[in-house]
């Protein structure tokens, strides 16, 4: 059972973004960490803002994303993951976007499947490494389990696990610290922003 949504009106989020130059630059910087290519980072940044502000989407739910940085960072990460998964997006620079040719869906494209499988395997391995590091620490592991089931907000995670919200916050802090170590220990992740 999810926590009651605490939706921030899109117009309010637009004002926050419009007022905060440091936020805008930091989000673009984080996009660069994903793409390592300035033009792609700008595209990803633009898509992140569009997704966050477009009223066709649900928008910022503070029950799930306590801060605007958390919300925008999550959207950006999700878009970056989707791009990696999509062979269409990987090739789109070569395509006429006004008149896109027929491109095999990732599931039917061997190269796309390979890329996607590698990405999924990498994330899966990182999670398993993290879980191994957290052996004997039930709360952070339970938070990971909850997140894998789609739970995210501190309150809904605390309800699911049967602990207090501060304990979830503490567990997330531990996940963040140990996650950084796991990322840093992977050779392919070194040098990432």
């Amino acid at each position, binding site marked *: 059972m999810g926590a009651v949504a605490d939706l921030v009106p899109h117009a309010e989020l637009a004002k926050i973004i419009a007022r905060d130059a440091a936020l805008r630059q930091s989000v673009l910087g984080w996009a660069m960490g994903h793409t390592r290519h300035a033009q792609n980072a700008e595209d990803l940044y633009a898509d992140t*803002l569009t997704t966050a502000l477009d009223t066709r989407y649900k928008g910022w739910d503070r029950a799930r994303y306590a801060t605007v940085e958390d919300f925008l960072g999550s959207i950006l990460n999700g878009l970056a993951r989707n791009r990696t998964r999509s062979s269409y997006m990987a090739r789109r620079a070569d395509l006429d976007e006004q008149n896109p040719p027929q491109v095999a869906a990732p599931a039917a494209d061997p190269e796309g499947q390979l890329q996607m499988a590698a990405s999924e395997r990498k994330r899966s391995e990182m999670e398993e490494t993290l879980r191994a590091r957290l052996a004997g620490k039930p709360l952070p592991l339970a938070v990971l389990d909850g997140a894998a*089931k789609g739970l995210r907000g501190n309150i809904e995670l605390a309800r699911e696990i049967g602990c207090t919200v501060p304990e979830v916050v503490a567990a997330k802090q531990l996940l963040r610290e140990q996650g950084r170590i796991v990322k840093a220990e992977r050779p392919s992740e070194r040098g990432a922003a």
Partner: protein
Amino acid sequence: MTDDDRKPGAGWDLVEDLIAEEEIQRGKTMPAEERRAEMKARGLDPDRADAIANEVLAKLGYETATAAPVPAPKVVSLAVEREKRRPARPTWVIALVAAAALVVLVGGGGAVVAVNWPSPSSTTSVPQVPTGPPGPSPEQLAQEQRAKADELRKVAAVECAAEKWDKCFAHLGDASKLDPQGDEARGVQRLQSKASRGLVLEQLEAKEAPGIRVLPPEAKAIFVAGLATSKGQALHVVCAQGAEPSHLCDQLVAAITKGGWVVTRTNVAADAGLPHGMLIEIASDADDATQAAADALATGLEWSYLFARGPNDAAPGGGAPLRLTVGPQ
């Protein structure tokens, strides 16, 4: 929850989001010029962040970003500027304070003239529409939030001292939301760690009868390595008599010595007023290196599944600057 409910790797998404949140917050709290320089060094044009945002905002029918404030004229009255900014605590001052590992957070900003202007946005392709909202400016709001956060942290310190861990942690979390930058201060980080350990310890004590405490063999190497950054640190270990605490003491003293620390040990009767469990105490006038060593010791014990309370402040100058008491269970 069963393993079947989990999609492999899906939990990692949360971890990446947590890291992203922290990185974006870190970027936000950097001085504007430093942030711009860092972006340029990575091949990014900082002004594009404004231009693209304005394009998106305009396209979706929102008001565009406000024009960057005009930089202050080069010739100004220092006295006027100082007075104008006296209540404000510029972001980079806090960073310097944190870097210098000072614990005191309040005050101190009066003599500094801030030069932390947001970056100018000269390349925007969308007309800039000023959207000055009524009411307090963002800087005033931020200042009010910092003041509230300071208050919350003071309350949290009192609650942590009374071992009301959940309240302490909750108030620290509230303060963090209001003033994420304040979390960089060493005193705040220590309080957070203390509350976190207290919560976990409380939970462990509530849920299960304590087993025999040992330093697990697989954790010993990590524990020793974690202490290496504080080689030469003096530590006095006070051990309760009895098989269980005495054996744990033997293990800890051996491991800590192997980590390059200089350990002295005293054995005392278990009923000699010793606290239960383990307690790390540090003289309140201890230097930075000793404080860092105390943190390393607490973290190392935590990662060895041995939770110690503290580091708590002990009387200044009395006995060893850093002490670990291994009391009865």
